[in-house]
């Protein structure tokens, strides 16, 4: 057990050190690099907390997509950054805020230490109520059956977020291709990576969704991988991002949640409640929802990364 404790302590210290770096370092780009490393360690911590589903999400979203998003932003903002440092609040204010933040941390730490033991939990209730859902992974059961409304609302939330990202576009660019992805110059290594990785990634993504019913994995993780592969192809310039006015793209974005609502509504007549599944059909329906939702979420996540429309000019004409 001691080795495990050493691993845990090392992880906790490293994560805290990196968080400190993210907060304190002067240049945003360095902070973001630290944040990506931080996300990586968080994924390992989730494994240590026996939350493999979460670890997968963190690995895919936290390091992968968030990393790309923030690195791109840091790079584009670097030219404006010089003025920032001088705008820090005065030393007295900083010390005061620091003290209060420390007080918050101490209070939370006390609360953590005083949490009730034995810990109350819904674990056994979930285990008892998993069979009717037909899935073997309790996390998937919770997400798609017991608390399906959260998952539904959450997949809906992504749409206003995407509209929010699009909304900063200039009027004439509206409906055009998204334009925030980094564009390194053509290089054989990148092209090779963008050709070799996606088939593999797509396989992994499908595996995660398919397996997510019974083993760790699921639509969010799978969708993130698919989105990452798509973005990689776009970055390498092998494909062009679609114009955002394309109707097929729009359909792809919303079809997942619509199917979810449709199946949920049919549950009113077939299973006695909105978002309930008829007995015996729960698993196929859940898999169907997961499959369609994966596509919609992957498209949305990818487009969130790709940024607001920047007009119809073909990308890569000058590089």
């Amino acid at each position, binding site marked *: 057990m001691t080795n495990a404790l050493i691993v845990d*302590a090392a992880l*906790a210290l490293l*994560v*805290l050190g990196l*968080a400190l770096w*993210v*907060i304190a370092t002067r240049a945003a780009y360095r*902070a*973001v690099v630290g*944040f990506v490393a*931080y996300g990586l360690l968080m994924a390992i911590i989730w494994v240590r*907390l*026996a*939350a493999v*589903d*979460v670890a997968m*999400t*963190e690995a895919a979203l*936290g390091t992968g*997509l*968030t990393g790309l*998003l923030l690195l791109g*932003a840091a790079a584009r*903002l670097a030219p*404006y*950054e010089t*003025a*920032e440092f*001088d*705008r*820090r*609040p005065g030393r007295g204010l900083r010390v005061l*805020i620091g003290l209060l*933040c420390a007080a918050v*941390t101490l209070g*939370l*730490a006390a*609360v*953590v*230490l005083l949490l009730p*033991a*034995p*810990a*109350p*939990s819904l674990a056994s209730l*979930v*285990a008892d109520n998993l069979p009717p859902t037909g899935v073997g992974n309790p*996390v998937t059961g*919770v997400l798609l059956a*017991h*608390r399906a409304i*959260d998952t539904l609302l*959450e997949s809906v*939330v*992504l749409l206003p*977020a995407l509209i929010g*990202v699009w909304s900063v576009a200039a009027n004439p660019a509206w409906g055009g291709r998204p334009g925030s992805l980094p564009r390194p110059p053509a290089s054989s290594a990148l092209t090779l990576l963008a050709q070799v990785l996606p088939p593999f990634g797509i396989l992994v993504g499908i595996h995660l969704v398919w397996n997510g019913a019974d083993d760790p994995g699921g639509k*969010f993780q799978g969708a993130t991988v698919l989105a990452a592969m798509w973005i990689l192809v776009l970055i390498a310039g092998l494909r062009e991002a679609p114009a955002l006015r394309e109707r097929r793209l729009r359909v792809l974005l919303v079809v997942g949640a619509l199917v979810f609502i449709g199946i949920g509504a049919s549950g009113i007549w077939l299973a006695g409640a909105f978002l309930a599944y008829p007995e015996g059909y729960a698993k196929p329906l859940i898999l169907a929802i997961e499959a369609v939702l994966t596509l919609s979420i992957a498209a949305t996540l990818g487009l*969130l990364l790709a*940024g607001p429309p920047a007009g119809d000019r073909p990308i890569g004409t000058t590089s």
Partner: protein
Amino acid sequence: MNDPTLFGLCGAALVGLGLYGLLCQPGALRKILAFNLIGSGVFLLFGVIALRGGGVLAAAGRGIDGDPVPQALIITGLVVAFAATSIAVALLLRLAETSGRTTLENEAPPAPSLPGERASRPDGES
């Protein structure tokens, strides 16, 4: 002190650190990073609660390691946090493009700029 508690304390510290960064770092991108730190501290606490909640089951020899409900909620929360980050980044990039500002002072005139430093950039847009 058992392992999950260690990570729980780590989560508490992350929340405090993130709060400090969110309030004291002037740059909006840094604030976004700090928000993500607070978020991950909160999720970490939730993960610790999930693991503690699994103790009952592990003792009974059932096949679940932790409480799956918090784990499911954390996954949802991570996706929401990503969406929040992407909106914030989009707004920030646009703000920087149109005005050269990356901080959040409001109506205040642009900070007195040093010679050679550019407070705003000419822009052909809109």
